[in-house]
């Protein structure tokens, strides 16, 4: 894409040069009226010119040349030209013209040329009105270059009182708008008027091409000379609903260098006088609904910032860690999140990001900006459209759990002013399903982790299947399983005992002796069966050598359990018996007491044994 553009531009250049060479003399065109207004109220010099051009020659003219002295041209940040349509009050600025740097032959050196290509050639006698806006950075030169804390900051601006043009100019005037402060001096020519903070040169009439009359204005300028030497803006799109913007600033106070002491005392007691040239804070105007705003630098959070928001904008006032005097530097990062639907749109199967190019800071000059648009992983067919020429690259960024990385569009531009805060678009294709890739990856990862754990637990990983320790382990497993079975059986016995007890309680409630006897018979049978079940298990334990140390306990358990059975039976029959004999409760209790004690003791023992075996 970038290459294609370059080739096209080269071809255009060639065409242009051919056109200029073949064109007749430039003086065919005359500027019948030029009005220039230079706004010096901020650190950016903005020159707005209204030019009325007439074709005086025989052939039609399709371009108009602008000339700027090279000294200024290197500071030129922004240049646009618009066609003004209509007359008088109904003037509207219409179509923007293409402005290209040009290099016409036979022109004086030390001048840079730009050409405005008219939408339709200007025929003989026709006239056209143009609005040209140029913004220059670093063109207010501090003078003196070094000041102390108490001094005010004075700057010099130099330009020409006569409009420097390759064409003759009939009528022209120049107005300079300065900040509301002291004006130290300015060059006085004929027709010079100073009106408060405005200085007016002209009108001058009938000047030949390339007439030049230097003027210098020396005035007080205490506004913030905030210059971002470098700004890196990273815009990361997440289709989960967020556009994350991170901006790294490297700020310097571009005004007069501070020299000598900095006294906090003076600064705190009289900040307006003893710190007039310093700036304390910067204001950034973020889009509405900005959230999760942070402001920090390399060594942590900076606590001095304020955020105000309304439905139109979010305004954030940030104070650097210290007030910036001339030449002082600082660096910080701000970041914020924006709702996706405000900036990313879909059209014709393509998605595009519509975002503003420059820094959101108020009145900030950016020497070099790098804009990185990080698209979600899996975006394809990227293309960029910008309202002005920028350097373009592409790279890959690896971020959270990426496999292929996220495509990044890198846009670079030098010398950026707030006028560059125009929207640019990044087009790309993105399948919404790709969004689910990372969660899916995590799920798979954790799934396989569990699967591995399960496999590890269940699969026999021993190398030698015939080694002694392996066999011993197998035998021990068998023993454990058997002991487990025995325990289960004993537990069943115990619960059967409970049934027996329950039948006794039923007896005391209902008095149904027969039912009680039946219950006894049933449990008796059940217990017999259970003890039959125990027999082979015990004999297995006896035969197996690793069970030797556990065997006595198990045998004891079984014996105790059998004893318990007997006692319970005895108790049961005693109670039923005494019930049949209609003996009193106390007497029954007396009869049962000793048995009951034994039962409780046995139960306790069995419990202990079970616990002991469990621990093994």
């Amino acid at each position, binding site marked *: 894409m970038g290459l294609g553009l370059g080739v096209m531009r080269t071809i255009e250049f060639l065409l242009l040069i051919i056109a200029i060479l073949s064109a007749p003399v430039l003086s065919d065109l005359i500027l019948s009226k030029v009005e220039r207004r230079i706004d010096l109220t901020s650190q950016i010099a903005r020159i707005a010119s209204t030019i009325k051009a007439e074709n005086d020659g025989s052939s039609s003219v399709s371009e108009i040349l602008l000339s700027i002295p090279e000294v200024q041209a290197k500071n030129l940040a922004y240049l646009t030209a618009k066609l003004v349509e209509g007359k008088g009050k109904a003037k509207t600025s219409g179509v923007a013209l293409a402005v290209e740097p040009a290099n016409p032959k036979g022109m004086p050196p030390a001048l840079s040329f730009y050409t405005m290509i008219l939408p339709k050639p200007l025929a003989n006698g026709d006239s056209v009105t143009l609005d040209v806006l140029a913004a220059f950075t670093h063109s207010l030169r501090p003078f003196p270059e070094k000041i102390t804390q108490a001094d005010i900051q004075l700057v010099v601006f130099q330009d020409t009182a006569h409009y420097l043009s390759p064409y003759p100019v009939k009528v022209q005037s120049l107005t300079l708008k300065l900040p509301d402060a002291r004006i130290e001096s300015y060059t006085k020519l004929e027709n010079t008027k100073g009106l408060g903070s405005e200085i007016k040169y002209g009108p001058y009439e009938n000047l030949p091409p390339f007439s030049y009359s230097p003027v210098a204005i020396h005035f007080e300028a205490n506004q913030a000379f905030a210059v971002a030497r470098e700004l890196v803006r990273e815009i990361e799109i997440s289709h989960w609903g967020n556009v994350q913007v991170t901006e790294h600033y490297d700020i310097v106070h571009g005004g007069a260098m501070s020299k000598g002491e900095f006294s906090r*005392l003076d600064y705190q007691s009289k900040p307006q006088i003893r710190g007039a040239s310093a700036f304390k804070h910067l204001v950034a105007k973020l889009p509405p609904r900005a959230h999760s705003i942070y402001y920090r630098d390399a060594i942590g959070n900076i606590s001095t910032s304020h955020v105000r928001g309304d439905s139109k904008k979010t305004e954030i006032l940030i104070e650097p860690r*210290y007030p910036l005097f001339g030449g002082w*530097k600082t660096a910080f990062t701000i970041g914020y999140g924006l709702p996706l639907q405000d900036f990313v749109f879909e059209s014709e199967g393509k998605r595009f990001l519509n975002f503003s190019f420059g820094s959101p800071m108020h009145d900030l000059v950016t020497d070099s900006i790098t804009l990185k648009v990080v698209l979600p992983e899996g975006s394809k067919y990227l293309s960029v459209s910008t309202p002005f020429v920028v350097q373009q690259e592409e790279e890959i960024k690896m971020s959270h759990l990426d496999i292929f990385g996220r495509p990044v569009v890198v846009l670079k531009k030098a010398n950026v002013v707030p006028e560059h805060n125009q929207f640019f678009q990044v087009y790309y294709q993105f399948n919404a399903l790709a969004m689910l890739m990372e969660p899916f990856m995590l799920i798979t990862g954790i799934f396989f982790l569990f699967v591995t754990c399960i496999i590890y637990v269940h699969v026999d990983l021993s190398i030698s299947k015939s080694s002694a320790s392996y066999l011993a382990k197998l035998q021990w497993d068998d023993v454990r399983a058997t002991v487990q079975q025995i325990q*289960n059986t004993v537990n069943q016995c115990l*619960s059967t005992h*409970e049934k027996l007890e*329950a039948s006794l309680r039923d007896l005391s409630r209902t008095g149904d002796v027969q039912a009680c006897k039946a219950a006894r018979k049933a449990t008796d049978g059940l217990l017999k069966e259970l003890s039959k079940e125990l027999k082979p298990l015990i004999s297995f334990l006896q035969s197996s050598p690793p069970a030797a140390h556990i065997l006595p306990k198990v045998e004891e358990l079984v014996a105790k359990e059998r004893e318990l059975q007997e006692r319970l039976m005895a108790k049961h029959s005693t109670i039923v018996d005494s019930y049949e004999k209609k003996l009193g409760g106390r007497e029954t209790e007396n009869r049962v007491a000793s048995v009951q004690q034994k039962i*409780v*003791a046995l139960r306790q023992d069995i419990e*202990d044994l079970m616990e002991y075996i469990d621990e093994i």
Partner: protein
Amino acid sequence: MASPESAVNGPTMTAGAASKSLRNAFGGVIAFIILVLIGVLAFSIRLFSVIKYESVIHEFDPYFNYRVTQFLSKNGIYDFWNWFDDRTWYPLGRVIGGTVYPGLTLTAGTIWKVVNSLNIPLSVETVCVFTAPIFSAFASWAAYLLTKEVKGPGAGLTAAALLAMVPSYISRSVAGSYDNEAVAIFALVFTFYLYIKTLNTGSLFYATLNALAYFYMVCSWGGYTFIINLIPMHVLLCIVTGRYSSRLYIAYAPLVVLGTLLASLVPVVGFNAVLTSEHFASFLVFIIIHVVALAYYIKGILSPKMFKVAVTLVVSVGLAVCCAVIAILIAVVASSPTKGWSGRSLTLLDPTYASKYIPIIASVSEHQPPTWPSYFMDINVLAFLVPAGIIACFMPLTDSSSFVILYIVTSVYFSGVMVRLMLVLAPAACILSGIALSEAFNVLTRSIKFQLPGIAGNPSIAVRMWRKENGSSTVVAPNDIPKTEEAAKEKPAKKNRKKEKENVEKKPTPSKTEKRLLVLPLEASVIAVLLLVLLGAFYVVHCVWAAAEAYSAPSIVLTSHSNDGGLHVFDDFREAYSWLSHNTDVDDKVASWWDYGYQTTAMANRTVLVDNNTWNNTHIATVGTAMSSPEKQAWEIFHSLDVKYVLVVFGGVVGYPSDDINKFLWMVRIGGGVFPHIKEPDYLRDGQYRIDAQATPTMLNCLMYKLSYFRFVETDGKGFDRVRRTEIGKKHFKLTHFEEVFTTHHWMVRIYKLKPQRNRIRGKTKKSKSSRSVSSKRDVRGKRNPWH
């Protein structure tokens, strides 16, 4: 059973109660879940600093570790080992790779690398900030393992829960406190666990792991000498009490051999691992254990009579040899000036040593002996539980429990010498308190369970039945359980009586197990359980308070609450460091007292003269001398060291107490220790340190005073110092050799620049010079600049 308690006190109670009754069912799973929760607790209780302040590195030393980690992550491990740092100790520099304990740095660096290789873009700072909380969770788990080896899983869980939130440990491991201790405590406890594990199992596998854990500990912290002295002490104790076994041999011998070899691989330790007296005990015991092992072996193969003969023979020969060896050793040790001990170790053995000979160690507040309240602050109720834990360890005394007793006894002593070693005490206190609490709950809940009529007979059956329903194939009528409960309600009186009889019967019976004997009255046990729960709750409340209020401040950011509830942030330190880093030349040298050295190099990236690694006393004394000299002499000293900026910390405007004026006497002492023309009494009026009108002229003319109070009087017209609560002595003065270049918003940091030498005007200077400083010149001339 455990649920109401656990609601109050989390895992502490659950550990005691739940594991008992439900152990058979799914104790393992519950213990695992509790451990995970303890880990989460340990991690999250340390996040107060991030929530209340921000995710930032704290204090002084962590900044150095952070800087080293940054270097490591940027340049790789080999450059790290070979790193010669020219940003500090100008003009000497410092060999970082060979003088730093690399454990923490390598740990964080590895975490960072792993995380980044998984494409999770965490910054080095984030990793550093959260290393300490992560390792606190590990330390809790290690404490669980250790205590489990000693007294079973119940005690283990309790100890882990206590350690997760013990304030003493929190103070060193909040998020952002990126210091060696953060990982070292984990390494310490884990090494002890592996030692005990080896001792209990006699497995060579664990012995090897133990040596590796010891190696990690050596990498992490100078406190490893505690391990290499405590374990030999325990081995010796075991031998003396006749508990020698092959397990003891396996636990000890490989540790000494492998551990020493591994330790000498760490550059900062190197040959110290065999040369210094700190390691001497381990070798001595190593010899002893071999002698004992040999004796046991010979005893095994000889008849008793022969053995007696052999003993007399060997003892007489052996004594002679021993005497000779000991004499040589003593001669070798005595020939070195510090008897082979490093200054810090000597301070531990003789608490008065540092204040007598090394003011630089004594000047650090964390090297002071602690006060009684600090014990209550740092280990809280554990202080009362520890004695109970010691008693529990004696019933019965095993190899492992004797180790724990030895651990607590030594660490109590060390914590009494230096407040910073309270950190070593904390895990020991937690382990013993865990044992105490767990044993107490064991006894009390058993008593309750044994006596409570409703639960006494039936719960075990109920549990059994419940198990059966779940586990076995036999179908039990579902209405059985309600019936049992009904029965319990039906004849409580009857059962109760029977139980009482049973008690009477059981207590004297010798056949009953030991457990049965420890039955307390029901009411007493219930009340005791409640009191213990209350105690635990009190501990939790205290710990949370300590974590949230006392130990969460990062100390580079201060906050205060204004009357209307607003928060005022004092971010002066970072303001100054940020100014230095952006607005001075990258090779400028900044002089300040050594406290701020690490921060200056890490945050401002400027070269400093001295920093918190106080390895060169003379250099620090030079800075101290400069600070306590009059302006001109100070200028000369600083100029000879290429210093361009001088940074002082001054709290007089906002009342920040730990500023340079309050530390000034230490500068005088340390400076005077090397350069005798600085005399402490010159700065004291009648033995009192003061800066008001009564102060001595030496004090009022020294550089520190002047830099701190320059133009201070103009703030309020009187010069009232809010820290010292007095008006300053000398109010109006000018600086001739320094100029103020930056002062932060609250005046907490003031940076001055050395003025360039004035052009010499022939004749004129001489006159003005001699007339200006007549008196002060005479007595200090000739020795005012130690560098000339």
